[in-house]
């Protein structure tokens, strides 16, 4: 073997690392420090220990935000996977116009969730939205009524819009998963006399496990940091009822409670770490 001189190939990961450390790792570490202070973003910061954290857990608005964030994430992850899988099963077998249907169903997912929130606001604004008038024209009343006056229906609408927008994305991943399951397997089950439901629960579903895990984890993590769609659809209202933790962080930062807002970010970080760790455990157990 030749002696390689000045082969710096191994250091070619350095620029990416430098960028990442400067704009991600360094602020993250600094954030941990800031979360232990009362800094207002301008003046002197005083070390106050864990006071920001205790304040957080005594604040009704903050606890409400945790509840909203968790309900949104759980509801979204559940329904995104349910409908994504349903769509995929509908779209699995070839038919005329299938690729067109796939494009149409995926289309909402490429639009900014902020803009999507505005579009749905035009459709659903209580009393004024397009759907209220459309229903009135055919002589019916829109079943949602004043949905913004009621926390469960407001949450349901937010989750619905999110699921409506991104079910196409989970569908694509499930379609890919279904492609990987050979039809031999399912035909073998058919020959063995398994009914449609049995074939689905005993053969398809277990073989789909990797796709399910990817979808569930990405959906939970994505919806725990929800920001855009709530900003445009309800602005976190009425009051602070549907405010998510991400929005709370932004508002606390603008309200010159910089130290406190980084403490909230750390709490959200821990909330996101839980599903990440669980999914890594599951992957490792499998391998």
């Amino acid at each position, binding site marked *: 073997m030749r002696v390689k001189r000045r082969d710096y190939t*191994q250091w070619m990961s350095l620029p990416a690392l430098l*960028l*990442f450390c400067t704009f991600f790792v360094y602020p993250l570490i600094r954030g941990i420090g800031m979360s232990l202070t009362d800094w207002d973003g301008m003046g002197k910061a005083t070390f106050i220990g864990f006071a920001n954290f205790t304040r957080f857990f005594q604040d009704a608005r903050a606890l409400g935000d945790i509840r909203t964030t968790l309900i949104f994430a759980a509801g979204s992850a559940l329904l995104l996977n349910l409908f994504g899988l349903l769509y995929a099963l509908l779209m699995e077998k070839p038919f005329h116009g299938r690729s067109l249907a796939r494009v149409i169903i995926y289309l909402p997912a490429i639009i900014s969730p902020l803009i999507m929130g505005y579009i749905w606001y035009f459709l659903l604004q209580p009393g004024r939205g*397009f759907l209220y008038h459309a229903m009135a024209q055919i002589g019916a009343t829109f079943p949602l009524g004043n949905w913004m006056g009621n926390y469960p229906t407001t949450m349901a609408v937010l989750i619905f819009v999110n699921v409506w927008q991104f079910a196409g994305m989970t569908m*694509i991943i499930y379609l890919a998963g279904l492609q990987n399951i050979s039809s031999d397997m399912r035909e073998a089950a058919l020959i063995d006399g398994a009914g449609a439901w049995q074939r689905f629960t005993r053969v398809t579903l277990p073989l789909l496990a990797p796709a399910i895990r990817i979808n569930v984890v990405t959906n939970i993590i994505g919806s725990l*940091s929800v920001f855009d769609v709530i900003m445009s659809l309800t602005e976190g209202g009425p009051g602070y009822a549907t405010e998510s933790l991400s929005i709370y962080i932004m508002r606390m*930062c603008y309200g010159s409670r910089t130290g406190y807002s980084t403490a909230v970010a*750390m709490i959200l970080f821990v909330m996101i770490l839980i599903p990440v760790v669980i999914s890594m455990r599951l992957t490792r157990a499998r391998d």
Partner: protein
Amino acid sequence: MKENRLLRMLRILLVALLCVMCLIPFYVLLVLSLNAPSRVFYEGNIFVPTFAWANYAEAWSKSRVGTAMLNSAVITFGTLGMTILLGGMAGYAIARRNTTFNKAVFSLLIGCMMIPGIINTVPLYTLMRQIGAVNTLWGMVMVCATLAMPSAVFIYTTFVRALPRELDEAAEVDGCTGFKAFWQVIFPVLKPATASFVILNGFGVWNNYAQAVFFLQSRDKQNIPQALSVFFQQFGGAKWHLMSATAAIAIVPVVLIFLVFQRQFIQGLTEGAVKG
């Protein structure tokens, strides 16, 4: 497996319904954007607009969505270019030189892949203010490139590992090492990896709002979502014809790009899902 005809019809009918459900909001947006401002809610057939094309001219001139589009384009291309170059180099180094350093870099990036940007946005804002990067397009490019970097390094590392070693050896025989080997021999064959990276991250960068709301506040630096939210806030819920026309203009570029590249796009997503 043969499916009976009735079930097949039912399935196609359901898919058709699903497609209609996905398109209705877009259709309503179009109708609202073409309604004259004087059209009271609503006389006549609600599904047919009054074709007030002037809404679009007014929306275009008042909303500054044109500037925002240009900014979004600069940010998106800058981010993708920077991530492709640095991420590709890193992926090459990690896949080909299995040193402790490279193992550590890979673990760090993959470990942080799932952490959303909002977690460190506030301390990042402090840093950005210190280096004068708030309200600059290059600053936003740095932020977005950093957030996309783990995904790029993951995709490129996986892809380079699957490339035959002979490629590197051939380059070495020609006296190519380091960046030169990467740029002239490896990078050209990385096109499928680059395509899947762009597919997975492009729209996300273009649509970024959670970071833009912090880092792009000045009027002439706003990207599309930030410009729209600022523009809409001034109406307080009135002037739907202007709001919907602006929203319609704002989604034209992504819809066009998606429709033009839909085949590669869906295929890329499917392949990405299989590998992931």
